[in-house]
């Protein structure tokens, strides 16, 4: 059954290559969105260095094409959930850079009023359900988001992101089973950036092709070049169409790479500087999109305008994140329980 579905996927893929996965406008937008994430994360790293951001801070630099390409496939009402490397996902869903950055600095203007931090932000309005700090927990929660679409007979789909490190968690496989059993519209997205903290995927997973991890449950899976936003969009469209049509879940393994450490305090003994440099030079998703835009007749001036626009957004976010006040001390005791009766 998995094979059959895979073959069908391959056929559609052949057809899809005839037209580009993104129009020029879409690619421009994707370039903007990826650049926003890159610059936002660089700024977050800088603010961390200044001691303005505390605790854990997991940067998404290098992986931008994954969330931007997938988000381009969604419709209003679709849901997104991920782990703690989540700033990119939030910006991709359209959450404001100000609110995200102010949460990182622990201020009242943050999405969680400063009470969640880097790993715990949410926006029901944008369909973003977190931001979860326990490796793998978001996978069964995301299956629950898909469950609610099924329960309400809505046509919406859920994107459930997790790393290749989480892909070995027991509840991930329980979720595959539940989603396949109930035909839930859930797209499981493994962001395989090759390292779960400091442990390479080869040292953690006996499975060599993670896109086949859900095949025993009949869930079709694909490996995708997660460094190419157009390839992501193309595969994402196939997965979304499959789920919206009521065919049950889908699995995408995004082959991607994080340039930075697992968190800010990662000494990165486990890989060489050269490996990182090679990925940056040869596969950078933003450079790839930039070249494609220039090849399509875009001008440096046009891209410079986007660069400047993005810089302004990030600078505004950083300013806001430093000027928004810390939460009032009374906030310590609020939001523990909903007090009003329904």
């Amino acid at each position, binding site marked *: 059954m998995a094979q059959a579905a895979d073959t069908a996927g391959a056929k559609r893929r052949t057809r899809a290559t005839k037209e580009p996965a993104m129009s020029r406008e879409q690619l421009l937008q994707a370039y903007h969105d990826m650049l926003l994430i890159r610059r936002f994360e660089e700024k977050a790293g800088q603010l961390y260095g200044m001691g303005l951001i505390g605790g854990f801070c997991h940067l998404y630099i290098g992986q931008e094409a994954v969330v931007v390409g997938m988000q381009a496939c969604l419709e209003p009402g679709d849901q997104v959930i991920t782990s703690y490397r989540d700033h990119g996902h939030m910006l991709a869903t359209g959450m404001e850079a100000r609110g995200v950055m102010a949460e990182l600095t622990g201020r009242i203007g943050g999405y969680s009023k400063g009470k969640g931090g880097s790993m715990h932000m949410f926006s029901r309005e944008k369909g973003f*359900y977190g931001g979860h700090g326990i490796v793998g927990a978001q996978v069964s929660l995301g299956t*629950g988001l898909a469950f*609610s679409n099924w329960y309400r007979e809505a046509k919406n789909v859920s994107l459930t992101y997790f790393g290749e490190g989480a892909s070995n968690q027991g*509840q991930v496989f329980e979720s595959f089973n539940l989603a396949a059993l109930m035909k839930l519209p859930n797209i499981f997205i493994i962001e395989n950036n090759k390292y779960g903290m400091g442990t390479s995927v080869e040292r953690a997973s006996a499975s060599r092709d993670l896109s086949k991890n859900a095949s025993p449950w009949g869930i079709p899976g694909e490996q995708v070049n997660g460094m190419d936003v157009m390839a992501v969009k193309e595969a994402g469209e196939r997965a979304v169409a499959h789920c919206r049509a009521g065919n049950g879940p889908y699995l995408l393994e995004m082959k991607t790479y994080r340039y*930075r450490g697992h968190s800010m*305090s990662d000494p990165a003994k486990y890989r060489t500087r050269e490996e990182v440099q090679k990925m940056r030079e040869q596969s950078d998703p933003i450079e790839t999109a930039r070249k494609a835009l220039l090849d399509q007749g875009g001008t440096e001036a046009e891209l410079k305008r986007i660069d400047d626009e993005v810089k302004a957004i990030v600078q505004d976010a950083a300013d806001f994140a430093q000027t928004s006040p810390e939460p009032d001390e009374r906030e310590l005791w609020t939001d523990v329980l909903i007090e009003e009766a329904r």
Partner: protein
Amino acid sequence: MGVQILMPALSPTMTEGKLSRWLKKEGDAVKSGDVIAEIETDKATMEVEAVDEGTLTRILVPEGTEGVSVNSPIAELDGGGANGARPQAPGHDTAMPQQPAPPAAASSAVGEVAKQAEDHGAVAARGQARGEGAAKAGEAAAAPEKDWGPTKPITVREALRDAMVAEMRADADVFLMGEEVAQYQGAYKISQGLLDEFGPRRVIDTPITEHGFTGMAVGAAMTGLKPIVEFMTFNFSMQAIDQIINSAAKTLYMSGGQLGCPIVFRGPNGAAARVAAQHSQCYASWYAHVPGLKVVAPWSAADAKGLLRAAIRDPNPVIVLENEILYGQSFECPVAEDFVLPIGQAKIERAGKDVTIVAYSIAVGWAMQAAEELAQQGIEAEVINLRSIRPLDAATIAASVKRTNRLVTVEEGWPYANIGTEVAMQVIEAAFDWLDAPPVRVTGKDIPMPYAANLEKLALPTVADIVGAVKRVTYK
């Protein structure tokens, strides 16, 4: 026009470090992302990446310097306007710390672990005690029980089913899921008839995968659905406890009040009969420990019906600890359509002036029997049925102790850090001067539950234990 490069922090706790090596020299061109130096603390060595572009004009701190303070200038960069107008933070317009970069510099993995432990410690250290789970003990005792009119005898099993049926009829967002709840009609027949009435979309058999289906239910609740998750027994909720605590209980707070989790976890808790250690544990104090959860433990059929209805309507995650042995017992229960009980209020099951006995779940029945025996010996015991473990009705308990001056708590759970401990401590805090004797806890023994019939009997509290405890606190 020069920009100062500042010594970056590797973590908010770092105050100084060693500048071990410069990888650029004066006059070198620097691009954003270039590694310019290596810095070192006792925990890790990190590379410093440039954020700004330009030419390195001056190195202010030579390599090998130890004790360089965070945020002190280490070099100067001629910005050269390489990227046009460089965004500048207010108050930092000429001094931008560079980013600590993670790459291949050698360091100790132990350092990383130590760093994380420190981060966790820092968070934990900020905790502060406040009796969040308790109503103010100094307040007046709860209002007297509302009169719900006519009653009829039903079993606890029927009461639980009736509660779910009533709430599922009233609200299409309410559904039941768990192992054997649908076609099998419930492992303990609590959900009898529900599949017929509500169909397979609202009464859902799950595979035996508590971790996964609990997470799925919590995710569904985050979208506004109102799941009732039946655990075949609460012993199996241990498979899912991460989702209950880390996802269900904490998300409202972590989201600054945006994302609630209206969900009920219910099922039999505590010892059944002869099922040994892994199936005979009380989880009251486990769940009652957690801010963000409510925990109720019904004894009678009226408790079961009224509390479960309230739990389903509550916008927060609620743990409903039932008891298998009580399922078949009958009690008078109000027949009123709208019968519901408030979470957070205890019930005085029997009034008395000589001693306060506080109990919950099946232990309320034992306490009532003990009170009968004690009455025959001339001791009038007041029996308080907690109903709600969190929030705890400390006001009712304290008011009772102020009348009786003596306290005995009864539960089948283990003694260490149990509910009786919490009740006794709250009484000590609120009514110490009224106590005429140290409180006594009657509990299950501090051992895994044995299988042998005689040993199992010895492991659980008895009516005689309660009578004995009352005599101790009344010095009789």
